[in-house]
């Protein structure tokens, strides 16, 4: 009985080790994403995610890259290299799913751009700013989980502020971390450089945007003029002579 138990234990162990070896072997052979940048811009309530990927293909010309849960691919175009098929394929290995792009170039550096659509992203959610806060603030957040079995060399994400709104802040901002606030073209972007992203790791960026009510500046200036005039009128004696007590 004991021998049977031992044999079953050894068989199970061998099975796990071999499965892991297969997985590791595939991960080691897959094309490597050297760097990746997501630039999220508005299209109505939807987000257009322009994903720029620099990668090194494997010996079969393959590159794998992660699937974002909240966005679907609309198109793909190469910047350098030649895609053998116009579409990428979705591949699943156990609980891991990722996209596979095949290039004519084997073990070469390629770069390509993927356009994705995130539906309803710019509808946002009410910003969590505590109990005292400016009105009309919304949080826009995007989560990107590396669903591939290999690390992404470096990953950056930028979220554009819709026209007519202001970037209130980047959630959890710290000037000691690689947050960025940039202006590119017609948009202001809040961004973060996540660096190397391990398999299974989730990268999240959130910005708070808000819509300053039109007319609030006029109202403020009226208050400023009234307060200043009132204060100066009440304190005219300050200009006349110093008062000793």
């Amino acid at each position, binding site marked *: 009985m004991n021998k049977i138990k031992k044999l079953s234990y050894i068989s199970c162990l061998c099975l796990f080790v071999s499965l892991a070896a297969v997985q590791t072997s595939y991960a080691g052979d897959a094309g490597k994403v050297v760097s990746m940048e997501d630039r999220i811009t508005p299209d109505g309530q939807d987000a257009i995610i322009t994903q720029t990927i620099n990668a090194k293909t494997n010996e079969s010309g393959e590159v794998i890259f992660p699937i974002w849960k909240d966005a679907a691919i609309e198109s793909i175009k190469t910047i350098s290299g030649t895609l053998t098929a116009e579409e990428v394929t979705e591949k699943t290995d156990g609980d891991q799913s990722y996209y596979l792009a095949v290039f004519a170039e084997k073990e070469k550096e390629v770069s390509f751009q993927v356009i994705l659509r995130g539906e309803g992203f710019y509808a946002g959610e009410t910003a969590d*700013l*505590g*109990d*005292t*806060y*400016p009105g009309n*603030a919304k949080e826009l957040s995007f989560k990107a989980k590396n669903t591939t079995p290999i690390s992404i060399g470096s990953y950056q994400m930028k979220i554009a502020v819709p026209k007519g709104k*202001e*970037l*209130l*802040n*980047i959630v959890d*901002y*710290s*000037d000691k971390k690689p*947050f960025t*606030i*940039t*202006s590119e073209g017609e948009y*202001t972007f*809040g961004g973060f450089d996540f660096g190397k992203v391990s398999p299974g790791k989730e990268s999240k960026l959130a910005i*708070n945007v*808000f819509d300053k009510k039109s007319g609030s*500046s006029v109202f*403020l*200036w009226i208050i*400023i003029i009234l*307060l*200043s005039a009132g*204060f*100066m009128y009440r*304190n005219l*004696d*300050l*200009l006349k002579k*110093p*008062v*000793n*007590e």
Partner: protein
Amino acid sequence: MNEAKATLSAPEIKVKKVKSPFELKMQFFGLPAALIVFGLFYSTPVPVGLSYAGKMALGVFLTALILWVTESIPNYTVSLLVIVALPLLGVWEEEKAMGVLGYEVIWLTFAAFIIASGMEKSGLAKRLALNLITRFGKSANSILLLLMATNFLIAFVVPSTTARAAMMFPIVLLVIEAFGTTLNDPKNNLGKLLALQGIQSNNLSTGAIVTATSAQIMAIGFIKDLTGQNISWTYWFIASAPVTILTLLASFFIGKLLFKIPASNAKINLSLLEEERKNLGKMSLVEKKALVIFGITIALWAIDTRQIHLFGFQLSLVMVAILSAALFFMPYLGILKWKEAKISWNLLIFACGAYAAGVALDETGVAAWGLNALFAHLGIENMSFTVIFAVIMLIASFSHFIFTSKTVRTIILIPTIIGIANATGINPVALALPAAFCISDTITLPPHSKVNLIYYNTGFFNVLEQMLYGTLVLLAKWGLMIIASLTWFRFIGLV
């Protein structure tokens, strides 16, 4: 409204600061100017590289700064408005803004008020001063040096420049009387020196002991919060004390050169001081209790990080101060009742608002953004450490000409200097801590501190004399700081 008044602890000393016409104009235009600045920040677009929160953090800070400097409305009122404005404008969450009241720097200041009240009530510092002078004061020079030493020593015991001035001022008056110096004497240089060195030794000694004034406590709070580096009581003392002692000696010699003491003035009659000392009688139980409590406090501060090895526990600087405050209030053991504690709540609230506005600037990235823009323009990153150090120390030492409040100077200087250091790749503590040693260099003009006003009341010196003497001593200190940056600060690993 147009008159600032400071009433000191000793009932006989009242300082009334009458504002100059320029200060009154500042007060008149302060509120409108501050509101216009706020309106401009609110209405104009967000600059590239900054968030709306960052832009408004700067707007709130500058608005508050104008109001603090011009004193159009009380500084604590401005601070309360700052606490409301930060979350309302989306700069900082409400929880964080209100949380400043719980910062250790605020607790430390609070405890320092209680300790100062206890020491003042006990009369221990006065006894110490009188004993030193009557025992060792044999000539004008020895008296001047003793007063300096006494000011330095009581800075350990009394964590408030004003309270120390209030204790020392009557003694200085007695000394002046003991020398037979009168205001009518045209060569009353001894009176000048006693009064001016009273100011200088009070303010300059403060720089050696972190707990000697609340602004310095705030400075190490900023250093800890913005750089993550903890400055201990002992480390501050080790770093700063040699420069302070040399500056005090420089002050002594510069004073002697500027105001020569006639031989007729050099004879002293210590009978008045001796009588005053005798009147104190034997050390009372209250004094003994105060001595024990403060002895424990100083010992724990001085032992510092070695507490864990000696006792098996570690009490931080702030916890030692809170423990000390608790002991002062303890029935039977202590000497204070709650009503006797002179806790300056207005200063605590002022500090809260000022601290919140300063930290919000850093947390929203404004400090880094502004400094990067400035340095890109000036090319400061190409300057050597010594040049940057020299420029910053000069600014830190003489900034009291523009911002008379120690707290305001701390709020402006320390985070800015940390930003400069970060942008230029210098260890921020190497610049911010020496700059913090200069926060109390308020020795050039009477309105720069209550200490100055107390001594100015003697009538023994005029404004020009104080400015000339003060400027020369500060230049000497500046030189000593630069020398220290190349020697002592390097030796102890500060730079």
